[in-house]
């Protein structure tokens, strides 16, 4: 696989761009693989890459029902942070952050990881105390974090609403300087290309429609491209986890909900950080192309449709103006939705399953983009060794039965009902 570099660009420029190769082969399925990863999203592709890279398991296929990166990895608002509170989450997301910091070079694909810093505004003394608690935990786990007072926030992001008509005045903020964004598509393509470079087959337009059993073991999958045998199978289909889980006979604590995202017309640089509104549901960053990319809350009902409704569009716009009155005349260019695998404690599930040969990676809710590298790393380890990686010990299916739930927000099961 030819390396990408400034030099390769020069060389190709002179030869009229005629000599570039495919980023990954257009593979057709073999009759069987050591490992089949279902789902060509960020997590599935990363898993395949680390299976080869870390565990030298190369007879691997990634099966994607549509086009690689067409799921949530290709439609998310790309916020990457490691400001988690609870033991089990904190370390996992910080490990992920470290992998992000080296991803472009590890993959030889520029994923444009931009550590521009993320802040969340606080609107009362109590809220700021809560943020301080979080920041303290981060620092004590070796993660960068800062608490800003109102004036420090004003200096950093003067265009927020500091006027006296603000409905929820800004008291301060929590800030993580290493947080930021990355180019969503590049993450999918970068992992696909790197995995392909290790011999992994990336098979698009190949929907898994069922599982092949031998006794109580799963030994392969039925697909729209025929039956494919597998030693082990990793499930990484995000919003569709329940659909395939049910086919495999798993009973899962997951509901699929739609989350919308929004982008404005391209503008010259305006928002230099990731800014989140602590008084309501709105967060925003500016893509390198210039669009303000923002999001809000779930639409609030089970959905497998990749689109939302006008009510949430308006609520998000209201919150946007409440935080940033200056974007009133900026125009919304496009809005879309993605299907989210919501768990009762809003934390993910990565683990072996009761079914031999089947491994589960899902329940990422609206936070799984930032987890992509660590998830792939740990899931690959779990599939390769059959034992959960220590960093995902807390993400087992049985935690709901035992009560070891990880509820960062403390809203409980069916959080999305509130």
């Amino acid at each position, binding site marked *: 696989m030819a390396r990408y570099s400034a030099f390769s660009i020069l060389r190709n420029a002179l030869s009229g761009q005629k000599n570039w190769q495919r980023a990954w082969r257009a593979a057709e399925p073999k009759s069987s693989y050591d490992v089949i990863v279902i789902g060509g999203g960020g997590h599935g592709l990363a898993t395949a890459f680390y299976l080869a890279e870390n565990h030298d398991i190369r007879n691997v296929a990634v099966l994607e029902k549509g086009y690689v990166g067409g799921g949530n990895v290709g439609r998310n608002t790309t916020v990457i942070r490691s400001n988690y509170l609870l033991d089990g989450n904190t370390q996992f997301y910080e490990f992920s952050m470290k992998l992000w910091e080296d991803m472009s070079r590890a993959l030889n694909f520029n994923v444009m990881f931009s550590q521009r810093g993320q802040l969340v505004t606080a609107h009362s003394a109590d809220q700021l105390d809560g943020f301080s608690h979080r920041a303290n935990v981060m620092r004590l786990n070796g993660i960068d974090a800062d608490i800003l007072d109102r004036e420090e926030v004003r200096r950093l992001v003067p265009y927020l609403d500091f006027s006296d008509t603000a409905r929820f005045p800004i008291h301060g903020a929590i800030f993580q300087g290493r947080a930021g964004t990355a180019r969503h598509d590049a993450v999918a393509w970068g992992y696909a290309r790197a995995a392909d470079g290790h011999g992994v087959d990336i098979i698009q337009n190949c929907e898994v429609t069922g599982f092949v059993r031998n006794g109580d073991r799963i030994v392969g999958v039925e697909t729209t491209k025929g039956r494919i045998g597998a030693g082990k199978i990793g499930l990484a289909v995000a919003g569709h986890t*329940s659909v395939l889980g049910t086919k495999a006979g798993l009973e899962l*604590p997951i*509901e699929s909900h739609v989350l919308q995202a929004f982008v404005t017309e391209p503008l010259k640089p305006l928002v230099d950080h990731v800014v989140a509104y602590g008084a309501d549901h709105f967060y925003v960053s500016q893509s390198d192309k210039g669009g303000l990319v923002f999001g809000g809350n779930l639409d609030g*009902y089970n*959905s*497998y449709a990749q689109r939302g*409704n006008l*009510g949430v569009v308006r609520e998000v716009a209201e919150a946007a103006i409440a935080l940033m009155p200056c974007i009133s005349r900026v125009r919304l260019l496009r809005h879309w939705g993605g299907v989210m695998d919501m768990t009762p404690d809003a934390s993910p599930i990565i683990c072996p399953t009761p079914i031999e040969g089947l491994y589960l990676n899902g329940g990422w809710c609206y936070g799984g983009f930032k987890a992509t590298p660590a998830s792939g790393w740990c899931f690959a380890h779990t599939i390769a060794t059959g034992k959960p990686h220590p960093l995902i010990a807390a993400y087992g299916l049985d935690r*709901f039965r035992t009560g070891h739930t990880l509820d960062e927000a403390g809203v409980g099961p069916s959080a999305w009902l509130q």
Partner: protein
Amino acid sequence: MLRIECPCCGPRDHDEFRYGGDASVKRPAHDDPDPEAWHRYVYIRTNPAGPHREFWQHVTGCRQWLVVERDTRNHAIAAVDFARKLRARKSTLRKSPA
């Protein structure tokens, strides 16, 4: 907006309602001591891509809890009724012999 036809208030935007999730899961009796039963009720969801029976409360209207049958792929609504009515119907069913 989803337009939900409340049996007593007529068709309304869904943001007049509070969503209550899967209505097909059966809540154990209040004094049912079986942890497994409660675990299933609180956590396990079939989460179908297709017809889904779900609770909605017309919270800014008549405040009644409704059961709506909606296709989660396209939001087409097949049926709406009062949760009480269905509950009552079910319990009579349960009483009837066989």
